[in-house]
């Protein structure tokens, strides 16, 4: 998968990335970067 394809997948449907240039750098430098989403255990997202 090309860098452009990865970037498109990650950014689609988002309302904001802080900062896009930093995201691009992460994708360039790392094959397997680490990400998370936190969820409170009660229907309301997120933590």
């Amino acid at each position, binding site marked *: *998968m090309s860098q452009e*394809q*990865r*970037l498109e*997948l*990650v*950014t*689609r*449907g*988002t*309302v*904001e*990335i*802080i*900062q896009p240039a*930093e*995201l691009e750098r*992460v*994708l360039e430098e*790392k*094959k*397997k*970067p*680490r*990400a*998370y*989403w*936190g*969820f*409170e*255990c*009660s*229907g*309301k*997202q*997120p*933590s």
Partner: protein
Amino acid sequence: MLRKAALLAQLPGMMHIGTGLVCGTKIKDMIQAGFHFIIFLADWHSMINNKFGGDMEKIETAGEYYKHCFTALGLTEDKVEYIWASELASKPNYWERVIRIAKTITAQRAVRALPIMGRDMKTQDVETASLFYPCMQAADIFEMNLDVACAGIDQRKAHVLAREAGEKLGWGKPVALHTPMLMGLAGVQGSDKGSYDEDSKLSSVIASKMSKSKPENTILLHDSPQLIEEKFRKAYCPPTIVEGNPIIEYYRLLAFHENETVVLRRDQKYGGDMKFSSFSQLEEAYKAEKIHPQDLKANMARILADILRGVRDYFDKHPEPLEQMLKIEAR
């Protein structure tokens, strides 16, 4: 089974499609793009926010149920890593990290970065424990050595705070990725007028997001196709208007995210099926009065029921987590 479904709909803690689908599909995108993805089950944070009355045992049950929901959506343990906040908090340096972060933040900013969901921003009602919340959120990010932190847009302040703290402490700045909040079925009009953010637009977006206190305004992952159809029939969907129209929003965020093309099924006498290969095509057709609101709603209900079929099948085969959730109420 029907009785059980009715009971479940009234339970606090049931996952709705805002969480299951908006977050779930984004997580799948990230995995496909090569990320190691962690679903963080924030039991401590739930306790701080007095979820289930702050009862940790009930919170753990709800967290297990959450894990099953995401598994049912295809986020199995071989694809994502599940980490409990209490696991992370038991590491020797965790609380030191929290304190170091807390030392970089004024109390006023911590209050302003609080998770604002479903609460008005009156500081006199805030428990001191709540001030730990944004500090823990930042500590979680650094403790798990993350490159990217994902959340709904309502969490932006906490993420900005984490970035600033990380920079001051020399721990680096995580990239923050924010998704939209999914509007409730009643749209902006049907939401409460509470103040959730000093940015009035963001405040109304948060207010209109799917609220657990209004089951008729929310689609739960477990809702039957019949119930989904019923809820959509009553949904807010003004003809030709796309701004603030929750049904249009569901096409954009859900239907077109899961599918390349969307077919609206329609009776021959009303013109027959319509096929759309992009969201903007559908949007334009709706504005031009080429789609009737009833058709728009009925088709979205069908598409959603299809997307959720896997979840219903999973819980038919694994009823235990739901039964545990029902027992919570009886305790």
